[in-house]
């Protein structure tokens, strides 16, 4: 098993192994994730599918160590392959992980206007992201512009140079306060407009000056995508970004995501509950149920030959005209007292004795097709 892991680590960008997350609430301990395994390869779109409460959002937050309290990550590893160096994101301290958040791994959420600050314009917010992560680059650009045009005081230029050399000294900060920094702001503004144009927002100059509540859902989502891509992240985590959008706008955003993937070569972890979107967009798919990934395969493979009973039932329950609606009997288990063994066993039509007692392991059954089920020998 270990040898398989290390080869995977070499060709995957992010790998989550046996992630365990628990929430300590008044009602009890919620076993949100009990051993999630998945990996994202560079340049691919991995879809993470599952119903409400299965833990897909928690998984995505865990990768960036952003699990909201009362949740705690209590087990497993999260590996991030950064330029050949493998980092364990769980073991990083707060400063290092903050450098990764937004810069290397960026996130896009379901309701864009809930995650944009309503009292600042789009320009200000994207500008803030740029300043946080690409400050040096913009300082250099500002200095260049000053040299080329010859406008602007030499004091401004001195401030920029000082900010480059000694960014943390108190003197620098005092000088920066007195300086108008017009050129720097102008550079940032140009970049913001460029970014907005990249995500196909018409009339980006006007939109940049708008507040989030003035934007429609589709535009706000594009703005958030622009913000996420502003620092050229190598991986984008998209948590149900099109669920709240109209179907025609969703089609536009999906097309945009495909184009951006082509252009920037970033990987995307795309979380959704819509199997149609998964089929349209993703290269590989991971199916989650009640806190575990139960199947992970190439998208064509998954739709043609699903192995896990839950995946099969999920595909059957998609409404098709002329056919009766097939539902999955029973309900999602309460994660405060989850069933022992396989969490799907009480709804599974292939339930066996062992399913009630032993948790099936996540194993590679066919080439690049992983399942966690006793039907395929889930126990070692």
């Amino acid at each position, binding site marked *: 098993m270990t040898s398989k892991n290390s080869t995977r680590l070499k060709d995957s960008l992010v790998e989550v192994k046996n992630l365990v997350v628990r929430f300590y609430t008044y009602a009890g301990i919620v076993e949100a994730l009990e051993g999630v395994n998945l990996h994202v390869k560079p340049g691919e779109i991995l879809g993470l599918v599952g*119903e*409400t409460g299965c833990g897909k959002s928690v998984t995505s937050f865990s990768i960036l160590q952003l699990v909201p309290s009362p949740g705690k990550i209590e087990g497993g590893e999260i590996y991030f392959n950064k330029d050949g160096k493998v980092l364990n994101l769980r073991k990083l301290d707060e400063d290092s992980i903050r450098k990764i958040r937004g810069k290397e791994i960026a996130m896009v959420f379901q309701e864009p206007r809930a995650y944009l600050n309503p009292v600042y314009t789009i320009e200000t917010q994207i500008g803030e992201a740029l300043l946080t992560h690409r400050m040096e680059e913009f300082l250099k650009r500002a200095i260049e512009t000053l040299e080329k045009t010859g406008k602007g005081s030499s004091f401004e230029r001195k401030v920029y140079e000082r900010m480059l050399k000694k960014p943390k000294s108190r003197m620098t900060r005092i000088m920066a306060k007195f300086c108008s920094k017009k050129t720097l702001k102008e550079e940032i503004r140009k970049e913001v407009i460029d970014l907005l144009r990249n995500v196909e927002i*018409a009339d980006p100059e006007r939109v940049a000056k708008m507040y989030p509540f003035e934007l*429609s*859902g*589709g*535009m706000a989502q594009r703005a958030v995508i622009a913000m996420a891509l502003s620092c050229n992240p190598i991986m984008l985590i998209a948590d149900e970004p099109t669920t709240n959008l*109209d*179907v*025609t*706008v*969703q*089609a*536009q955003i*999906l*097309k945009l995501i*495909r184009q951006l993937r082509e252009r920037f070569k970033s990987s995307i972890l795309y979380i959704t*509950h*819509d*199997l*149609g*979107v*998964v*089929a*349209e*967009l993703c290269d590989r798919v991971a199916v989650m149920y009640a806190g575990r990934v139960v199947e992970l395969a190439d*998208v*064509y493979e998954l*739709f043609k030959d699903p192995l896990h009973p839950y995946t099969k*039932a*999920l*595909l059957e*329950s*998609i*409404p*098709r*005209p*002329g*056919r*009766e*609606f*097939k*539902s*999955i009997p029973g*309900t*999602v288990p309460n994660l405060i007292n989850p069933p022992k063994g396989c969490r799907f066993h009480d709804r599974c039509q292939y339930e066996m004795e062992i399913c009630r007692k032993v948790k099936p392991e996540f194993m590679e059954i066919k080439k690049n097709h992983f399942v966690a089920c006793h039907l395929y020998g889930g126990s070692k």
Partner: protein
Amino acid sequence: MSSLIFVRNLKKYYPIIGGIFKRRIASVKAVDSVTLTIRRGETFGLVGESGCGKTTLGKTILRLLKPDGGNIFFGAPQEIINEIIELEKTNPKSKRLKKMREEYDLATFSGAKLLELRRRMQIVYQDPTTSLDPRMLVKDIVAEPLVAQGIAKGEEAKKLVLEILERVGLGEQHLYRFPHEFSGGQRQRIAIARALVCRPEFVVLDEPTSSVDVSVRAQLLNLFKDLQKEFDLTYLFISHDLSVVECISDRVAIMYLGKIVELAPTSKIFKSPLHPYAQALIESVPIPDPTKRKERAPLSGEVPSPVNPPAGCRFHPRCQLATDVCKKEEPPMTEIEKDHYVACFALMKR
């Protein structure tokens, strides 16, 4: 099939109040002159994107909102309807018209007549978390229509409540609990029980499966079908999820910015949509089959604001087939094929 609901030129505008004196400075034309017929016993699907007015239309038919124009007929005989239409064209101020409208036209109802209506028409909302009073027991929530309309109370009401709860798949043990103790699917069942407890004829289903999971969705849809057969119900199924509408509706109407653009039997409208917007909409739905991927997004731009809709045909700024007449006049609904209506000048020419 006889028509149960006939809606003619229905309008619902929301005023925008502004200025120092708080006057109506503009209106959101949520529903702008909609005409449609719902036949007894059928499931009529109403689709469209956000802001098109489908929920407003459903609530206006139910008279939860007061219409700003048009007629709504519920179970009225055809001769009466014809006479009213005739009188409106020839003699709009006649007393006879006023009397007939007060008798048959739901748009004019108020007070006691409206209360009577509530027994025959009901609604199931989209989000069962907010549509059930969180401080009331399930028993009281479902019994409310009975008590409010004076049909039954006390023990008798409890009996009827139990009956309907069992039909939707819940039981006696659920009576004395609060809504937050149930899952989303169960809450929606409670909402359905509440809608059906007074045995209505017509039920508006406002996106009833949008807030529940995919696996529960199928259970609810099966429930709707069974209940329709058992109680002889007529449904107005409002949804933005076209795949669900395709499976459950007999006929479908597509709305855009307060107007109906296409109305046809389900299979026809999904296999061969005629209106450009209908085509784009149906084309945009992602198909759960990776071998059938589409690379293009059929429609660009955004839906314009309903405060200032484009002149003429509402869709013309985004339409490939737009011509001059489309920019000036609104296209009427024409029957292109049997039972297949479209509102589009470009198609009329053919």
